[in-house]
């Protein structure tokens, strides 16, 4: 009897221990998964093209002699842009109006570089109603538009627009295509954005490229997040 009781207790003890161990493993697995996701997101984080900084600094350097006032305002613009990348870029989500301000600074500094050789239309919402977005998603499309959309042989344009509409944020970015840039491949930056969006939104977003002979169109539709983005979507 005593023996039986002892055996029973041993079995129960084992059962409880393995039950708790199971829980522990589950927790650890979950932690690991989260950590893994975090690392992937970190890895995919937008990094601004270093040439953008160097070329912009070069133009400001020239402006110091030519137009000191514009040089000053460009430095302010560049510093706001850098602050955004350095401090907002790390957060999971940020208010949309910060992101649209950032895009305005970015385009303004790009206009400095290209002057009149490209027509840039930027239509961003003034009121963003507390919408939260992941930082630095849109800029990689705009960056690509400048990279591929500017020609001196043909008229060039870049059109960027964004609107919030019934629970959706619709972002469009179009640029002129040119025979002199036969290679439209959008590189690792674009691939990273797609993977990042996959991790953040799962299948609840739309990213569509429309490549016509003279226009390259990007359509991105994100579900609107009125609050902070919850945990990364299950994959």
């Amino acid at each position, binding site marked *: 009897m005593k023996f039986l009781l002892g055996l029973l207790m041993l079995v129960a003890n084992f059962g409880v221990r393995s039950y708790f161990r199971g829980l522990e493993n589950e927790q650890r697995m979950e932690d690991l998964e989260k950590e893994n996701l975090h690392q992937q997101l970190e890895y995919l984080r937008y990094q601004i093209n*270093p*040439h953008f900084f*160097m*070329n912009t*600094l*070069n*133009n*400001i*350097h*020239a*402006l110091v*002699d*030519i137009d000191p006032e514009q040089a000053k305002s460009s430095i302010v613009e560049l510093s706001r842009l850098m602050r955004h990348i350095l401090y907002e870029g790390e957060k999971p989500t940020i208010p949309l109006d910060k992101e649209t301000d950032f895009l305005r600074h970015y385009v303004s500094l790009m206009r*400095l*570089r*290209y*002057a009149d*050789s490209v027509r840039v239309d930027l239509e961003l919402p003034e009121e963003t109603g507390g919408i939260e977005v992941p930082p630095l998603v849109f800029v990689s499309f705009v960056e690509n538009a400048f990279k591929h959309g*500017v*020609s*001196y*042989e043909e008229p060039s344009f870049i059109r960027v627009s964004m609107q919030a509409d019934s629970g959706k944020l619709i972002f469009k970015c179009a640029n002129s295509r*040119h025979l*002199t*840039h036969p290679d439209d491949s959008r590189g690792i930056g674009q691939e990273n954005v797609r993977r990042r969006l996959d991790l953040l939104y799962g299948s609840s977003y739309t990213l569509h490229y429309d490549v016509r002979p003279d226009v390259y169109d990007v359509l991105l539709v994100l579900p609107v997040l009125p609050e902070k983005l919850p945990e990364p979507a299950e994959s």
Partner: protein
Amino acid sequence: MIRCLAIDDEPLALRQLVSYIEKVPFLDLVAACPSAVKAREILSREAVDVLFVDINMPDISGMDFVKSLAAPPMIVFTTAYSEYAVEGFKVDAVDYLLKPFGLDDFRKAANKVKKIFDSEHQPVAISAADSDDAIFFKTEYKVVRVPIDKIVYVEGMSEYLKIHVEGEKEPVIVLLSMKKLEERLPSSRFMRIHKSYIICLDKIREVSRGRVSVAPEVSLPVGDSYREAFNQYLDAKFLGK
């Protein structure tokens, strides 16, 4: 003068480049081009010694443009890139200017261009056979041996001297004062006849109205303060009235 083209698609960057070129006295800007296409057009009708060219441009990159040239002139790349540096040396770039760059950086690159230009345009091939007596001159990039008896005349231009050597098309240009060279040359054979001229007396062909000819189509003035000494020399050599 070294003839150059400035090529950059960004208007401000081009303007800056042009202003730097204008500040370097030995550079002569042929044209400022906003694209490689424009530069190619200029190159088809103008002689150009050096291109200052941006690498990253729409349509045709500076690198592709340079590679497409059958006989490229000297190349100085201006770029925000740095990883292209290695590739650049494959196309024999003289130098790289990483944006943003200052006037001093530009001057350094321009001086490298000048060294190469000078060495290609001053084939000083003086025979070492007649090693009677010679002077070695340090020019910017090498040491040149000039036999004293081949010196026809020396011309001063600010801090430089142009040494005109018999049988050489181009003078040897050295950074040296007239006084220093005058002291080194044997006074029995050379005479200072002007603030800016030393001549070899053996090379005098004719003297007329205060001017001395030491070579065909070279007629040098005799300066006021040197006239007396020069006339004394002539008197001593003079025969007949």
